[in-house]
């Protein structure tokens, strides 16, 4: 890992009139990291990015880049480059002029600019396309041009605002890998914004999960997936089954929860909440569909769940079973397909089993919208 330039948000508040778009954000982003802000649309991700790039002054708190407070420093003086959600390529300039715009500003000669443009075009695998206009490229190609244009400015921090959201699925998956490769090659800090947890999980070193202006959890992808610290993080990242209830007993790092409709179940308490959950508190327990498995019907105990099967579906690599769940939401179970025979259980009661370490309990809270 190269040293790179880190970014810190200290007690960052951003208000639009009475509306609080970002509430007391504290984030430390290590130099050279690929860092993602993950959250649903409208949660304040773009707002944070605009505060980092300098288009927006925080209402309170500080943005530090490489340890320097950026207060009062305009976007053209910050060592950041932003890739806009709609790319914002200059429509009247040719590709090579677009890419080297930052050099033109500094008065570089056309020959220098062409040379640099050719290098960058090679890097983004668009050799010789410099004389086209942005409108003459495909979506994925434009995407890469926007990246090249930002990199040409040699920023210490590259900011990307949902750059893949306009691409089709295939291209999106391809670009994930490509972006990650580019980041590792140039070794600068990437701050990436997305509402797509798949993108965040596959590319990022660290992820901040955001909900309505608040940062719920900052951790690496694995931790966020396996050990979410809030109900929102648990329900937003990946698919999850929720069981609502009250804490009946706390046993070290485990809690016995009296669920509304599945009896008393035992669960691990998420790391961030250990010591904070007390008997009688409202709690939520989450189990991933792939962490549930079939058990002999009628098995009893604190890690068995019995429910009626609504319907089933075959997805190729897994069989999905949808059962009556808690609070109107279906309980989903994914059974890996090993070529075993699989009969239809619709309408029958089935019993499921889980490993207590794969269940996680957090204080009751807001769930992510479907």
């Amino acid at each position, binding site marked *: 890992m190269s040293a790179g330039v880190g970014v810190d948000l200290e007690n960052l508040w951003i208000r639009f009139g009475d509306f609080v778009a970002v509430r007391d954000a504290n984030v430390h982003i290590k130099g050279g990291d690929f860092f993602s802000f993950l959250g649903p649309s409208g949660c304040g991700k773009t707002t944070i990015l605009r505060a980092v*790039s300098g*288009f927006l002054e925080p209402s309170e708190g500080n943005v530090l880049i490489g340890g320097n407070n950026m207060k009062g420093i*305009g*976007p*053209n003086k910050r060592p*950041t*480059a*932003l890739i*806009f959600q*709609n790319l*914002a*390529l*200059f*429509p*009247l300039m040719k590709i090579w002029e677009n890419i080297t*715009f*930052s050099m*033109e*500003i*500094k008065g570089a000669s056309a020959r220098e600019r062409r040379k640099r443009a050719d290098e960058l075009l090679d890097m983004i695998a668009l050799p*010789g*396309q*410099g*004389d*086209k*206009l942005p409108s*003459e490229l495909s979506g994925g190609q434009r995407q890469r041009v926007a990246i090249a*244009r*930002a990199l040409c*400015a040699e920023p210490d921090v590259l900011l990307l605002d949902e750059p893949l959201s306009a691409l089709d699925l295939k291209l999106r998956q391809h670009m994930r890998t490509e972006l990650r490769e580019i980041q590792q090659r140039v070794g600068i800090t990437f701050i990436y914004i997305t509402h797509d947890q798949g993108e965040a999980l596959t590319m990022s070193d660290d992820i901040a999960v955001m909900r309505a202006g608040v940062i719920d959890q900052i951790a690496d992808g694995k931790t966020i997936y396996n050990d979410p610290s809030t109900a929102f993080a648990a329900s937003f990242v990946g698919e999850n089954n929720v069981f609502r209830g009250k804490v009946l007993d706390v046993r070290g790092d485990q809690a016995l929860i009296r669920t509304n409709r599945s009896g008393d179940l035992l669960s691990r308490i998420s790391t961030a909440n250990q010591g904070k959950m007390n008997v009688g508190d409202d709690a939520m327990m989450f189990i991933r569909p792939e962490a549930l498995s079939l058990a002999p019907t009628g098995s009893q105990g604190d890690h068995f769940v019995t429910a009626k099967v609504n319907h089933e579906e075959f997805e190729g690599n897994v069989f999905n079973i949808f059962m009556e769940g808690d609070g109107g939401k279906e309980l989903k179970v994914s059974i890996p397909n090993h070529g075993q025979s699989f009969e239809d259980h619709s309408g029958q009661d089935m019993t499921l089993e889980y490993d207590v370490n794969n269940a996680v309990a957090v204080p009751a809270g807001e769930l992510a919208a479907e």
Partner: protein
Amino acid sequence: MTTDKIIRVSIWIYLGIFFAYLLGPLIIMSATAFNSPSFPRMTPWECLTFNWFGELFRDERILNGIWNSILVGFGTVILSVSMGLAGALMLTQIWPKLRATYYTIIIAPILIPGVVLGISTLVFWDRINRMLGLGADSVLSNGLFLTIIGQSTFIASYCMLVLVARLQRYDIALTEAALDLGATHAQAFRKVLMPFMMPAILSAAVLAFLASFENYNTTTFTFGEYPTLTIELAQKVRYGITPAISALAFMIVALTVFFALINEANIKRKKMIAEARKDATVGELAGKIEVPGLISRNPAAIALIVLVIGVATVTASAMTYSPDQCIADVQEQKRLETEKRIQELRDRRAKEAAEKAAAEGAEGGATQTAPKPSNNSGFGGVFAPNTLQNEGTDDGASDEGADDGAAGSSNNSGFGNVFDPNALGNDNN
């Protein structure tokens, strides 16, 4: 089927009437520029002449008016386009709640009569001039200055409308992207926003120039010692118009068509270049793109070339062609005709006199003069041109030159030759 046909035919008829209404006056006026009579008329066609163009270019006042109009036009373009651009940019920046109010205020000058703008410009700057204690020869009371300022008050609003339309399609993220890449605000404006606005700025400039060039209402109060073309024309028409004015009209029409065709050909060409680029390979893009020739598949370009060749031919032939012989012939013919008529009259008078004498001799002077030839018109002959003509000739019979002059020379009526009794007289003869 038949109704279909009827509809189609009536559409064509409608179009014909519509275009005749739109273009008829222009075509007729243009044609009169090439006819030799000194009052602009198309019939009777006497002699093809290019002399009215020469006449036009010898008219100091018209030339001076054109020059002043151009000066005012350029001044107005610069002032209006910059004010319009500033206004348009302001509209996108202003607090949204104020936007509607601001828009109304800035559009208002278009709705105010030009006369009012002219008067108020004059009064306002006169006050300021006096407040500053300046004399009547200061810049603030200069006709050029006042006209440019006065016209710009409302032409700037037109420009703003044109510019706002384009600005609304501008993505502000482009400016932000430029700033983000290290550009100053001035650089972002110059390198990103301005190129984007350029087409609209050019349109606004053309619009401003044309609006300035044709303006009369406002200018009439402000021109001072710099009468523009419209002012000069208006003053000239008061003393009767000559085909030299038609020549000017013809040139303006020709120039308009010329520029419209250039524009059209250019648009078409750009489209074809874009198409060629689409099909071009990477190598071709880097080098020279094979662009189709100027004329191929471009009707506007062909029309343009035809027009240019036509004008060149006409100009060249005008240099060598002289209508003198024809004019002399026509005049000679008219003289002969007049003489013939006078002769007839004299004969008739002589005959009448003889009859009178004979009647007097017979009835002892009891009867009056014989009544004039009766007229069938219900209007008692008031509108009958022949009657007028006859009366005119009756009175001036002794003056041989009068009729001759009237037939061939100027007429002060502002209504064209429709009410020119001599013309009608000629037709009938």
